[in-house]
């Protein structure tokens, strides 16, 4: 699952990472006796995505010998603002901002930069207002294109389709942009567009999609670009016994999602995803590079991978570990690295 607050899927955080070899000489400030301290100012929902993201970050930080402090605002933007202030005042060497509203965080990120702290952000749009910060993001356009290409391939043009999404949330908006484009290209007839962001996204959206399906019979495919939305959609399709007629396309993956995708007669045929563990680790590597003044770009993006139901079924994949073993590119071991960094993989 992705960026969006509460999420239900699984893989435990004490996931043990394999630590790669570091050959190079440690640059400053990693060569001192004092460990480098960083803070992660996170705005998560109660979900596995963030658990895994944080796990990845922790593993990588540990491998690098850094101390890490995690502030989690739990989908409360105001609290994230307070957390950021606390973090700036707490004497760390760098701050990672993981998710959050740009208007909220921008001034505070600039405060951090003014205080002389490198700030690395993940999935907050700030390039305009805080150009000094390092911006990292999952490549949402890439993800959406991957999965929508698969969708057009599967169902073909001029089909009646459904769309489940919530606008106003940056990554979903970016995926929406690709959707609009691909939909136009394929001349798909969008029969319904529903979706709401609540405390229990999957359950509540199942209700919405259920109603939408009842009101709009005959759609061939549904795009739900966030796995909680996808799960809700899948369950609504099943409730209406339409799994043989409708194909569902999603974004993100988790162990729970794998279970849903591989279940008997599941309409969820493919998903495009990154591995949150790997992203957390990569963001920490970016931070380390920035601290060592070895980062040459202000922007790093993480590419996605397409996972199909067939692949899962054919290889008997049940969980993320097995999936990573099958698709090692999920680990992104080549992104943001240097010879002195022991890269972790999962």
């Amino acid at each position, binding site marked *: 699952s992705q960026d969006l607050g*509460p*999420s*239900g*899927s*699984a*893989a*435990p*955080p*004490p*996931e*043990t990472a394999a630590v790669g070899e570091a050959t190079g000489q440690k640059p400053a400030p990693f060569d001192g006796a004092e460990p480098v301290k960083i803070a992660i100012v996170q705005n998560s*929902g*109660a*979900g*596995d995505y963030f*658990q895994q993201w944080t796990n990845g970050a922790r593993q990588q930080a540990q491998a690098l010998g850094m101390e890490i402090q995690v502030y989690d605002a739990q989908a409360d933007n105001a609290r994230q603002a307070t957390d950021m202030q606390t973090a700036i005042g707490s004497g760390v060497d760098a701050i990672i901002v993981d998710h959050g509203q740009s208007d909220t965080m921008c001034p505070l990120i600039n405060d951090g930069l003014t205080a002389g702290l490198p700030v690395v952000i993940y999935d907050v749009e700030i390039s305009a207002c805080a150009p000094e910060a390092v911006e990292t993001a999952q490549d949402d356009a890439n993800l959406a294109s991957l999965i929508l290409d698969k969708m057009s391939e599967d169902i073909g043009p001029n089909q009646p389709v459904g769309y489940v999404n919530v606008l106003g949330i940056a990554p979903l908006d970016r995926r929406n942009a690709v959707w609009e484009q691909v939909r136009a290209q394929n001349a798909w007839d969008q029969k319904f567009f*529903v979706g*709401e962001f*609540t*405390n*229990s*996204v*999957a*359950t*509540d959206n199942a*209700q*919405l999609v*259920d*109603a*939408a399906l*009842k*009101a709009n019979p005959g759609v061939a495919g549904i795009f739900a670009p966030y796995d909680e939305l996808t799960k809700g959609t899948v*369950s609504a399709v099943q*409730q209406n016994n339409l799994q043989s007629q409708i194909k569902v396309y999603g974004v993100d993956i*988790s*162990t*729970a999602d*794998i*279970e849903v995708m591989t279940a008997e007669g599941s309409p969820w045929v493919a998903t495009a995803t990154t591995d949150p563990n790997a992203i957390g680790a990569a963001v920490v590597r970016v931070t380390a590079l920035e601290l060592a003044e070895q980062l040459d770009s202000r922007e790093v993006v993480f590419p996605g991978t397409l996972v199909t139901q067939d692949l899962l079924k054919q290889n008997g994949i*049940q*969980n*993320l*570990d097995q999936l990573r073993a099958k698709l090692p590119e999920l680990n992104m071991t080549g992104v943001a690295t240097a010879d002195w960094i022991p890269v972790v993989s999962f």
Partner: protein
Amino acid sequence: MALPEVDGSGAKQTAPGPDKQAVAVARPSTGAGVREFAVRYGFIAITVGLFVFFAVSEESFRQPSTLFSMLKFASVVAVVGLGVTLTMVVGGLDLSVGSVAGMSVTISAMAMVFYAQVGGVAIAVVLLAGALVGALNALLIVVLRIPDLLATLASMFVIMGLKLVPVDGQSVSSGMVLRDGSVAPGRFTPDFLAIDRAFLGPVPLPVVIVGLLAVGTWFFLNRTRWGRLMYAVGANPEAARLAGVRVGRYRALAYVLSGVFAAIGGLILSSRIGQGDISAGNSLLLDAVAVALVGTSVLGLGRPNAWGTILGAVLIGILITGLTITGFPYYGQDIVKGIVLLLALLFSFTLSRRRSRYAPAAVI
């Protein structure tokens, strides 16, 4: 009848009135029959009216399957609301129900996925856990004398956190990797999934369950000694105690039952979601309290009661399903929900001349 002034010392008698016992009879109020009708049946009328409106305007709403999926949707709120109703009967209010339902989802998933137990075991464990939380609330409230709202608020926080500890804050799903690196051995069993998916004739099982629980609760509250005594405890605990009622036991019973009802709600949810979603149950508290509160007023009874609660849940079910099918944006649904609630309340309180007698002992 003007009375001639009585002066002087003489005990002057007035004309003797009718020589009968002065029996002041409170006749059943005549007139204002329409208003009385509105007070008593206004809410039901709204519910039926809405139903008819949706059925006429939306073809898909007319399908029996829609009717049942609506009732299914309402079933979780209804059963949790019944538990809340019981605690309101004894003059309290259980704020921990949402978290208990959420906890039940996690526990049932753990039982089946982590420990590969069959559905029956999961159900038993969940019900036990619900009763346990209820007993804990009862301990806080009855023995340690912490006011209901505060005690259940505190236990709400504790449970919300505690349920996440064994699962490290993650949703439980089959095939997940455990702490020791092994793969979780079990999965949601078909018999457990049947709780939400099975039918009894044309009626979904959760609807049947709620129906049975509602009848049971109604019978318990209105036809048995224990129910009566629970109402007594809620109406005036000191008077109940001095009438020989073991007040503490009845309050404890209400909280235990409330915990069990919330657990049943959690079981239905769990079976519906099919995995140990850690966010499940979050939005239940307000809805359950809302339907129980609405329930106190809808039938003009002015006290918490089983049918009222069920009716409240059904109304909300109809509303949400109907509005969704009509294509209302979700925030429009909230507005309409609020307005219909208000309308129902206007019937019950503004039109009703008598004030509600239901007064939970004290918030504090």
